[in-house]
């Protein structure tokens, strides 16, 4: 029954391209392994086809209205532009041919190269993911000039480890503030290495090099800040994990905790403000958003007129009295929790943007201080968001405890576009369809293009996650025929790292001594 595809005989004959869906230690269940990717892709294609059909209907109706009214009988729905095979899930023979040609060409590229041939690559600025130094030991000086110098690799790895795997966040970040806060010879060392790394990264992401290069230089430590806060819940509790802050801020951190506060004017005020949000009314939603924007804005605004006192007050506001937190948890329903989560969705990205916008070098003390205050303000926001997340988590847990059997159906319960109570809490608000006013043709087009783009990105991210879960273990477990290792690697690399658009060039590293 599986003989429909022309590729299959080739697979069996050559045994080169198969992907074993049997990672070590994993139970092979129904649909486990890369079949899940195929199923996900097929489902996505089905949805897309559905969307196209609906859209085609609407377009046809609009077209009919714009034509002469009364001449409808000869009207025929236009064939879908470019729909090659409708629902077919198999490539056509012609497509297979073309694919084979392409693969043969790629195989030719995977040929033996001598070390000398690497210089043209260098000249072009191409950079290697893995330097010669990583594999077999470099044999001559030229090889050592292959981009990504060996000594940068551990740095790179370390940085990446810092930003991606907070579990290994034990070693202190190399970035330290210079005088008057701290002096550290490591700073200079870092800055010397950074350009080298940035160049290689820059050319790696061809076309987007500037942002990435800049980001790598200034973003590293900041990414540490964000990620440390991001992953560690409850809110930042350990000052040594958040480098680059002034001592006053550090002290503040030490005194901060999710637990009970010593009370005081500020926390009461904060409690009051947040407790207004606790009530089930429009104010709740208003409060949550009010916090993220004005906080950030306020932080940035304050950076021009530094008033450390105000920021420290803000920090203290995060200490909520225990009884309030209990009430908050009890009062939130799962629907509200979900809405709150949605509000927080875009916050990390925006915060990262702000953080990365802060330069690592400051020409003047004023600028440095401004930067510091900005970062502190952002950190306050992060703490607040984390705190809210913690509250939401607590609330959710208490809700789950109340009715453990209900939570199972939560997926099907999530309402599709229930009008928010915060804004239209009256019945008329629901009945009256709100207007979306566009002012120009271009605006209308932009609107639709963006909506589509966002939908597509949602899907891409979901698919990416599925693919990562299914394809990476295949490579990591090394349960594939050795002969096809390179091709498999290339295919999976293309899919996972380049969205299927560009592929890396694989070169055999067999050197003639």
């Amino acid at each position, binding site marked *: 029954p599986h003989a429909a595809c022309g590729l*299959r005989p080739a697979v069996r004959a050559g045994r080169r391209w198969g*992907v074993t*869906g049997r990672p070590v230690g994993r139970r092979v269940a129904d649909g486990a*392994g890369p079949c899940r990717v195929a199923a*996900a892709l*097929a489902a996505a294609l089905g949805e*897309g086809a559905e969307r196209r059909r609906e859209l085609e209907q609407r377009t046809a109706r609009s077209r009919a209205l714009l034509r002469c009214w009364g001449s409808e009988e000869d009207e025929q729905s236009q064939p879908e532009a470019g729909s090659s095979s409708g629902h077919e*899930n198999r490539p056509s023979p012609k497509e297979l041919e073309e694919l084979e040609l392409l693969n043969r060409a790629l195989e030719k590229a995977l040929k033996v190269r001598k070390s000398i041939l690497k210089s043209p*690559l260098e000249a072009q600025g191409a950079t*290697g993911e*893995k330097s010669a130094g990583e*594999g077999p030991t470099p044999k001559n000086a030229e090889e050592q000039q292959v981009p990504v110098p060996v000594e940068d690799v551990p740095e790179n790895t370390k940085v990446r480890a810092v930003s991606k795997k907070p579990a290994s966040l034990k070693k202190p970040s190399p970035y330290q503030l210079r005088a008057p806060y701290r002096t550290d010879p490591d700073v200079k060392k870092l800055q010397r290495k950074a350009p080298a790394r940035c160049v290689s990264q820059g050319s790696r992401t*061809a076309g987007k090099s500037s942002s990435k290069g800049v980001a790598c230089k200034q973003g590293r430590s900041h990414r540490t800040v964000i990620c440390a806060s991001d992953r560690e819940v409850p809110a930042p509790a350990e000052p040594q994990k958040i480098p680059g802050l002034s001592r006053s801020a550090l002290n503040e951190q030490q005194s901060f905790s999710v637990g009970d506060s010593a009370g005081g004017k500020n926390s009461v005020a904060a409690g009051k403000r947040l407790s207004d949000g606790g009530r089930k009314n*429009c*104010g709740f939603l*208003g409060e949550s*958003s009010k916090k993220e*924007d004005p906080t950030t804005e306020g932080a940035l605004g304050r950076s021009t007129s530094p008033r450390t006192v105000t920021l420290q007050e803000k920090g203290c506001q995060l200490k909520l009295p225990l009884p309030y937190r209990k009430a908050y948890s009890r009062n*939130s329903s799962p629907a509200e929790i979900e809405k709150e989560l949605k509000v927080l969705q875009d916050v990390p*990205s925006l915060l990262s943007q702000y953080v990365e916008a802060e330069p690592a070098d400051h020409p003047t003390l004023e600028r440095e201080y401004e930067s510091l205050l900005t970062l502190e303000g952002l950190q306050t926001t992060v703490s607040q968001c984390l705190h809210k997340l913690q509250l939401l988590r607590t609330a959710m847990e208490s*809700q789950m405890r109340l*009715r453990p059997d*209900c939570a199972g159906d939560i997926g*099907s*319960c*999530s309402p599709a*576009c*229930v*009008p*928010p109570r915060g804004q239209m*809490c*009256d019945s*008329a608000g629901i009945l*009256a369809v*709100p*207007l*979306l006013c*566009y*002012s120009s043709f271009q*605006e*209308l087009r932009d609107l*639709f293009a*963006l909506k589509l*783009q966002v939908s597509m*990105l*949602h899907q891409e991210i979901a*698919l990416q996650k599925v693919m*990562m879960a299914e394809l990476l273990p295949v490579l990591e477990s*090394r349960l594939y025929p050795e002969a096809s290792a390179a091709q*498999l*690697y*290339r295919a999976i*690399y293309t*899919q*996972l*790292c*380049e969205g*299927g658009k560009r592929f*890396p060039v694989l*070169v055999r590293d067999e050197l003639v001594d």
Partner: protein
Amino acid sequence: PPPPPPFLLQSLDFWRLLYALLKQIHGGKWTESDAIDNQIRFVKSALWYHGYGRPELYRLPSDGSAGSRELLLAFSWLLHRLSLLEQLLARNRVKTGDETSVCTCEDDLPNSQTGTTERAPEYGLEDRVDVRYLQWLNGRLRFQWRSLHAQHQEQCKLLHKIHLFTSGSHMDQTLGHFSVTETDLVRQPENYKQVKTREEELQKEGFSATARKIEESVELKLLNLTHLCAPKKPQLHGSCRLVYRSKHPASKMGFGRSVSKEPVSAVSATEVIRELQMREASLERELKQLQEECRQRLDEIAEGLDGVICISP
């Protein structure tokens, strides 16, 4: 055996009623054949989701044999809390405007994106998949998105033309022009019997009086709302009616008075675009992070590949 108590049937029916109503709100497809205990479980979940706190309801038996009083309580709570009737009305009415949604809620439907419970029909239980097949599928998907984009742009063009051509014709000056449906209604009135029926129904039940009352209460509430929501961006869900206005609307929230009877909220495409751009940036960032993570792991894997150097694009 004694005859079944009179409320036995009533409870069952009541459960089924709640199920039917709540399923509509939650966008699901419901079938009569769903077993009663599934229906009851769904109703309980939905009530829990919306925050109904009475434990007695959750303790009701799953065969639907008891609980009419509790169900009555829950039902009245739903009517008030969820504006259940209004939501149902809103969902079931004839859509006369050019509707489009501004939120991306539909993208977050739980099992629609990854099809985790599905199996590729060609493969069944077998776990061998050719990686090139995956690449091919992915290519088709990307092409599909591009086609969809082109189609949308085409539809925008048509829509805008209709809006332009019918400008000035609508009796509701807030709108100013016809929608596609309204234009079609003019062209082929016989196709829209359902609208006429609805209209008759509404007039029959004295809806205009209710409408007036609603108007007044809304005007009162608007005052507070404007104040509360002023700094906040409107988070609209569901459908909005696309309206072309060549001048930029005066106020962002558009709560001002209009000639039409019904005060409606309006939001500008500029704002929505801005929000979408933010959302897009956030998603792109997330995707890049995932790709970056893959790159790292593949780097590590590449170290294990004997004799091959990988040069990234």
